[in-house]
């Protein structure tokens, strides 16, 4: 297994991840890497080929791939590394990442600070409890978007779209462009759930019928979708009998909401807010686990990518600062080593700055008994800095050595503090 150490690891390379990595690097972090499970950077932006991105940040109307391109180029310019085609399997509360890919096999990474930028998932059919068989031809809108825009497959010819989220409306236009017929968009709420401009330029422009206060109550077809049955709902979202309408089609798209993707966060002990589905965060986007930050749709679902980028910058900047602080502390700290006839000594690690402030106890037990006068020697890089006399030493009796603030200048800058027992 390959073992590595990075100042900052960003998980996910969508808009939040790219911004976080760039900001961490700019904040002074030495080595920053983005881990991405796809074969290229950019995340879901790459399949969002429509325009409307970047109006706040660039004051330009960019497509998703163009918006991603700007940040991909910038990330390379500032020296952000990328581990592509790599899946993070585990993240521990001590900020150890286990990832896997075809080139390296298993990789373990110790990290100064982590930014969670895994984005979100689409709410699937299972979450809706629509009755009927499980025929082919039911997709979430984002999956259909990837098939049509990146992989080059049309998932059907006659579509019904359930839900009026932005991806659903954008896909209604996209499918129309590719020669499909979008029979209807069905929304349970009394208003559209996406942006008004998408209603205008995706539905109105192409005469795609929208039915508010309706839902799908049945899916017909055994091997392939043959029709869906819609019905009007009352104020409690219950279908009203007698309003059923059978719409012949071969494909049903679901555009019914997004859920932050936090499987890894949970493994790391990150606490999630049941309302957002994302981590509880402070004003620096740090979660309850020190050194683990989060940004973008993994925290709560945004409607504008520009805001996701801003959240990424914020999280990345503080993750960078945190990692630098971690590195300074670990460079500064002394390892306390048990030498001759010392079974163990606490603390294992000592920060000289704490010694500068106040006396520090070293607590040890010997390995074997010595019923004679002995010295407890404290050495720094081979030089004796303190000697304590004892009349005997027994494993059953803990011995205490106190280092005083005057010892600070003798230990500062050293790597190790050695404690050993010598005959007097």
């Amino acid at each position, binding site marked *: 297994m390959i073992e590595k150490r990075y100042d900052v690891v960003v998980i996910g390379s969508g808009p939040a991840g790219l911004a976080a990595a760039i900001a961490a690097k700019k904040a002074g972090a030495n080595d920053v890497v983005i881990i991405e499970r796809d074969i290229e950077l950019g995340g879901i932006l790459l399949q969002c*080929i429509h*325009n409307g991105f970047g109006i706040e940040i660039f004051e330009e109307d960019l497509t998703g791939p163009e918006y991603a*391109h700007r940040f991909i180029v910038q990330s390379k310019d500032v020296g952000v590394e990328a581990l592509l085609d790599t899946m993070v399997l585990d993240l521990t509360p001590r900020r150890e990442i286990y990832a896997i890919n075809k080139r390296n096999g298993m990789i373990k990474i110790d990290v100064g600070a982590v930014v969670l930028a895994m984005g979100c998932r689409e709410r699937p059919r299972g979450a809706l409890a629509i009755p009927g068989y499980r025929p082919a031809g039911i997709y979430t809108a984002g999956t259909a978007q990837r098939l049509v825009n990146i992989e*080059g497959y049309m998932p059907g010819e006659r579509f019904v779209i359930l839900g009026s989220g932005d991806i659903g409306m954008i896909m209604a236009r996209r499918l129309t462009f590719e020669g499909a017929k979008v029979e209807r968009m069905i929304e349970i709420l009394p208003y559209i759930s996406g*942006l008004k*401009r998408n209603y205008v330029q995706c539905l109105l422009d192409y005469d795609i019928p929208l039915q508010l206060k309706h839902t799908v109550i049945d899916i017909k077809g055994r091997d392939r979708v043959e029709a869906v049955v819609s019905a009007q709902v009352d104020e409690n979202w219950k279908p009203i009998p007698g309003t059923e309408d059978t719409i012949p089609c071969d494909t049903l798209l679901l555009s019914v909401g997004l859920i932050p993707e936090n499987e890894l966060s949970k493994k790391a002990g990150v606490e999630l807010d049941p309302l957002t589905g994302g981590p509880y965060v402070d004003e620096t986007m740090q979660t309850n686990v020190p050194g683990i930050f989060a940004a973008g749709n993994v925290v709560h679902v945004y409607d504008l990518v520009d805001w996701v980028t801003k959240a990424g910058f914020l999280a990345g900047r503080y993750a960078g600062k945190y990692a630098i602080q971690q590195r300074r502390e670990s460079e500064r700290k002394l390892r306390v080593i048990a030498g001759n006839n010392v079974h163990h000594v606490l603390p294992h690690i000592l920060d000289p700055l704490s010694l500068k402030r106040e006396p520090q106890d070293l607590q040890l037990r010997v390995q074997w008994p010595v019923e004679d006068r002995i010295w407890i020697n404290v050495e720094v890089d081979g030089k004796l800095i303190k000697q304590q006399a004892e009349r005997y030493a027994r494993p059953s009796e803990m011995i205490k050595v106190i280092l005083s603030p005057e010892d600070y200048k003798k230990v500062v800058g050293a790597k190790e503090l050695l404690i050993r027992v010598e005959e007097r």
Partner: protein
Amino acid sequence: MVKEKTKLICIACPVGCEMNVTYDGKTVLEVDGNKCKKGINYAETEIVDPKRIIVTTVRVVKGLHRLVPVRSTEAIPKNKIFKVLDKLCEIELDAPVKIHQVVLQDAVETGINIVTSRLLTAKSE
């Protein structure tokens, strides 16, 4: 003079202002409800000659993916959208593809180019 009134939703930005537009033939007389001047521009074009940015994909041979996304550099008249899409169906690019590479010049005599909106490397063997 016959004053006519219509309601438009501005699509210039995500705010989506709902505007009342008063016009006479092809002259916009009054726009009400817009939060910025983009709304006035939008109303004027929308009444006279509605236009849209168009986005789609074109085929790529031996690319990392089979398609590359493309966009019009500016909005094109709505009534030419499907003619442009038909033209783009005939196009096939060879990888590698650069970002903002012109795919179709002066698309259907609109004076507007269709360009790629990402770079696409060649498929590694």
